[in-house]
């Protein structure tokens, strides 16, 4: 079956094996190396394994146990984060960390050690995993947590699926008073102002994020959004979900539409300036309201590029990156800038670390796009930053090794029966 990730840059043949709870041992019987596949919401090739097997986890979608006193939830790895939110929020519990879409699996959230808008307060997903069960392709089951098999635990959190199949996990939810957030949007006109706003907001606001304009005339301006859980109470009417019904032959995000989209987006957000109450779905998952929005980039797909830069080099490096982008004919529309908190992630090869993270997306125009990304790479490399594996398809081995210094330690825990396009590209020695 032809399989793609969210960036739709490739669609190659895979053997897809749907796992069910009674047939987990199927992962041992394969001749070719396999890889867990959740919702394929990663943008790059971290969830792909061309020519080999993918273990589709969507039928591992059972809840196992919930303790309403402590907020500890055990479930199988294919359960969707959105399903957890939908069931638990009315009961006063919420996922402490959640990415920008709720259509991801628990296993995928652990394997990429995903982060949310509240990283400065809550860290990344792995910080809230109490324990997990790992099934290796040799049939061994390893129960791990901070206290038990802790090396396996920190190899598997952020371990991009390479240490084994996560079959189930126990996570700690956080108590909340309801589904509401209070959110405030503030327009800023320069990156300096962004950093100032971020610093001023981190103490009193749990969630902070910003959208930054990469279009040359206005680059560096943006909208800063901050929010807190709120005990506001009133019924919320959900807008109807939109759907991109087909893939246009060319990207709708292009040189001509970008300035317009950026201006529209800026002014739309700027108009909302000030405080508002907002339900968790539009607040945490604004893009989920447009189903299959990744199709707007056309048949060639798009690149996501996300890096983290240490804070000391932050302003300079991000400025330089925006300069590079606006000097090129590539444009990024969904450009997100956010500061990470002062904590290192638990996982040996987790992405988040103290600093500032910039996420960009570029329609795939072939070599001109790749050239720009290589220029961005050198800025990241010079600043001792790293690139997020969940989004990558193309970074160099050198940048990978520099960005992930614990790689050597991690590789001891890799399952020899597992591979991914990413592991073959970056972790194999010729």
């Amino acid at each position, binding site marked *: *079956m032809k399989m793609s990730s969210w960036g739709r840059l490739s669609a190659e043949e895979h053997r897809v*094996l*749907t796992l*069910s*709870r*009674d*047939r987990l041992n199927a992962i041992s019987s394969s001749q070719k190396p396999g890889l867990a596949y959740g919702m394929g919401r990663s943008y790059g090739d971290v969830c792909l394994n061309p020519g080999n097997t993918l273990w589709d986890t*969507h*039928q591992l979608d*059972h*809840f*196992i*146990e*919930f303790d*309403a006193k402590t907020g500890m*939830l055990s*479930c199988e790895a294919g359960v969707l984060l959105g399903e957890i939110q939908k*069931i638990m929020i009315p009961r006063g519990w919420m996922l402490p960390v959640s990415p920008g879409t709720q259509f991801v699996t628990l296993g995928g959230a652990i394997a990429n050690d995903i982060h949310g808008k509240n990283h400065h307060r809550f860290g990344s997903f792995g910080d809230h995993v109490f324990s997990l069960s790992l099934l290796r392709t040799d049939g061994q089951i390893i129960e791990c947590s901070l206290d038990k098999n802790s090396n396996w635990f920190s190899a598997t959190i952020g371990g991009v699926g390479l240490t084994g199949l996560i079959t189930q996990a126990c996570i700690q939810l956080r108590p909340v008073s309801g589904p509401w957030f209070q959110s405030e949007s503030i327009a800023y006109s320069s990156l300096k102002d962004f950093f100032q706003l971020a610093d001023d907001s981190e103490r009193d606001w749990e969630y902070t994020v910003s959208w930054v304009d990469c279009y040359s005339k206005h680059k560096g301006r943006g909208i800063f959004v901050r929010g807190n859980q709120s005990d506001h109470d009133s019924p919320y009417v959900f807008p109807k979900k939109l759907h991109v019904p087909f893939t246009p032959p060319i990207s709708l995000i292009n040189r001509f539409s970008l300035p317009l989209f950026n201006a529209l987006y800026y002014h739309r957000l700027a108009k909302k300036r000030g405080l508002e109450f907002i339900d968790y779905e539009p607040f945490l998952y604004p893009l989920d309201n447009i189903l299959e929005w990744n199709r707007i980039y056309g048949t060639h797909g798009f690149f996501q590029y996300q890096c983290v830069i240490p804070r000391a080099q932050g302003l300079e490096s991000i400025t330089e990156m925006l300069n590079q982008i606006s000097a090129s004919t590539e444009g990024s529309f969904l450009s997100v800038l956010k500061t990470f908190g002062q904590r290192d992630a638990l996982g040996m090869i987790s992405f988040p670390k103290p600093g500032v993270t910039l996420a960009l997306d570029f329609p795939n125009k072939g070599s001109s796009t790749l050239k720009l990304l290589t220029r961005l790479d050198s800025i990241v490399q010079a600043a001792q930053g790293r690139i997020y594996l969940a989004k990558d398809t193309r970074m160099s081995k050198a940048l990978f090794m520099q960005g992930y210094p614990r790689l050597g330690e991690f590789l001891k825990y890799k399952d020899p029966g597992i591979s991914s396009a990413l592991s073959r590209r970056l972790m194999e020695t010729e």
Partner: protein
Amino acid sequence: MKMQSKTRTVIVSATSCIAQECARLWVIEKDAELILVGRDRSRTESVAQDLRVRAPQASIEVMETNFEDPQAIQTLADTIASTGKIDRVLIAQGILPQQADCQQDLNISYNTLMIDAVSPALFAEAFVGHLQKNNHGTLALLGSVAGDRARKSMYTYGSAKALLEHFARGLQHRCAHSKVKVVLIKPGPTNTPMTTHLEIKGIKFASANRVAKDIVSAMNRGKLVVYTPKIWFAIMTIIRIIPSFIFNKMNL
């Protein structure tokens, strides 16, 4: 004063993927009571566990029985009926072996006819009797589009499903003058453990959740026959009218 009672739903073969999706919809209804019937208690119990997390206030019971034993089936239905009025029954067991295996091994043929036709028909017979006594309740059987027209690659399974269709229509006739409803569901290819070994070119499998929504709504409305997703009604209408001399030359 009339006592407000729970809505009692019996799910036979509750470990089926499609049945579980139905259960997830029913369990969050107000005053839900689910009776999950399986052939293996511990596996049925883990389905119950999932539902209990989803809806701690619902009452959920697990029962084990032998799906091939008429006496056991009758006893099970009698036991459930003796503890209260039944509102809904869903019967979902099924297996889909390779046709070639059915041809080579009569035991596999036998099991297919047993699990896809005889066993669900017996459950239906046993429960409809109780629904009729109360002149109340809806029973649904899971047929299949494969039961609409026999073809070389699936005729053992297909003919078993065709038997279920006749059986359901017979029950509908029998219950026509009562408040008991019998619903026949005919899903198209659906993404469940039963179909993981199939890959049919050009056909998109429906999600079990989508099919379950249609089942729940068809049962609420007491429809006689429901194709899900709906497009299968059109497809099967065409396939049924293709003359045999053409159909038999097609590679289906």
